[in-house]
């Protein structure tokens, strides 16, 4: 989805305003909203991809005008209703109730799960590992993809050439996982893009942007050219290089709406 959340490279938001020594939470309700969301992840009410996509679907002006934890509030309300965990009626009733003085007695206290394990997400697969299609040093192009649904391929990188700098192994694929389309686990790489490739040839030479991209977002650069062997940026660690076999490419949502 090419939503307002995909901010990379936009202009017009002014200088970065930073508050020295700011508190972790700026209001009591932010504490509760943060904790509720983490607890809901722990309960598998929804996964992180669905949660992000719910926030991405906020009306753009609301997204820009509301604070971070209001995004979380919107995301939770929306997903809990969409997934039938609560009904709109229940929410409105609770909402109205909390304007009122009295209310229901609360359920007895249960021993809280330890926070660290509260919401384990099986993001990196332990079992069968799909083969990597790319290796460190490969020249790639970030695909021109504009799925109507969730994606982690930022618009500013699409169609741009880069170099694979690191293979981080296999992860759940957000574009399917956000839409109940299964984990579709696949390799995820750090890809290095020259600033000039992203922003134009007037851009200072040395600058680079490193973006973590799933395999489905990448295709080999067509023009055959010698492989880059220069010292990769960041970590020298490179994953053992399995033979390259093209894995079946997951069907990403087509641009055209069928609804």
């Amino acid at each position, binding site marked *: 989805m090419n939503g307002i959340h995909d901010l990379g490279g936009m202009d017009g938001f002014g200088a970065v305003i930073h508050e020295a020594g700011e508190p972790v939470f700026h209001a009591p309700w932010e504490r509760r909203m943060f904790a509720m969301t983490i607890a809901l992840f722990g309960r598998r009410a929804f996964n992180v991809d669905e949660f992000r996509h719910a926030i991405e679907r906020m009306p753009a002006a609301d997204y820009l005008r509301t604070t971070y934890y209001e995004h979380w509030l919107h995301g939770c309300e929306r997903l809990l209703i969409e997934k039938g965990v609560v009904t709109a009626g229940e929410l409105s009733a609770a909402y109205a109730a909390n304007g009122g003085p009295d209310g229901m007695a609360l359920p007895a*206290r249960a021993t809280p799960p330890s926070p660290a394990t509260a919401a384990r997400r099986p993001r990196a697969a332990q079992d069968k590992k799909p083969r990597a299609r790319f290796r460190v040093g490969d020249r790639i192009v970030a695909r021109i993809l504009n799925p109507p649904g969730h994606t982690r391929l930022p618009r500013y990188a699409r169609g741009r050439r880069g170099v694979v700098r690191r293979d981080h192994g296999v992860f759940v694929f957000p574009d399917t996982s956000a839409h109940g389309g299964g984990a579709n686990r696949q390799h995820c790489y750090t890809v290095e893009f020259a600033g000039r490739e992203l922003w134009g040839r007037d851009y200072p030479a040395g600058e680079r942007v490193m973006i973590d991209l799933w395999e489905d977002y990448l295709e080999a650069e067509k023009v055959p050219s010698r492989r880059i062997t220069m010292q990769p940026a960041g970590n020298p660690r490179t994953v053992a290089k399995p033979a390259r076999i093209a894995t079946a490419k997951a069907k990403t949502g087509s641009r055209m709406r069928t609804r």
Partner: protein
Amino acid sequence: MSVHDDKDRPQARHDHNDGGAAPGHDHNAPDSGPTLRVKALEALLIEKGIVEADALDALVDTYEHRVGPRNGARVVARAWTDPAYKKRLLADATAAIAEAGVAPGLEGEHMVALENTPKVHNLVVCTLCSCYPWPVLGLPPVWYKSAAYRSRAVSDPRGVLRDFGVELARGVEVRVWDSSAELRYLVIPMRPRGSEKLSVDELAAIVTRDAMIGTAIVKYPPAPAGG
């Protein structure tokens, strides 16, 4: 640790009078600010047994008081003083961070350390949302999640650094890391000149959160109050 007492507990009444539209979109109802909606949501989820109040308290306590940038500062100070550790940190940050006694946890499962050098300055951002290495830096500051930062960090990093009062020399290359997947990044700032005699703890004390994101340089003696 501010433990919730009952009177703060949000109440949920169970009488379904009207199936009005989800309140989420009712901006001008009286006191419709987030406070009320969050209270109502918590009440409902507790009433339905989906979340427990104590678990919420514990999560708040963990991320408000226990998990924060001091964890990351300890890792940085150790990397400054123990070359073998730094090597391990750069090779496998997840393991090395755990080795430094930082409990692994949410948003820290796949860590990568980025070493600043006289030639390369690293800057971390999440242009799509707010991905950030919680176990080592705690929850992200508001500016990290702002449109201003997320939009310009990748296209005008030097301009953003100027917003933080940091002017990089011409020859220094800026590398911006967009945390668009599951990897979380910890910048290892350059150790400041003059800090040679400091102990590991004293070193950890001068490492600022912003320096571990890449929007600040560690100074010694440290500059007045900073992020």
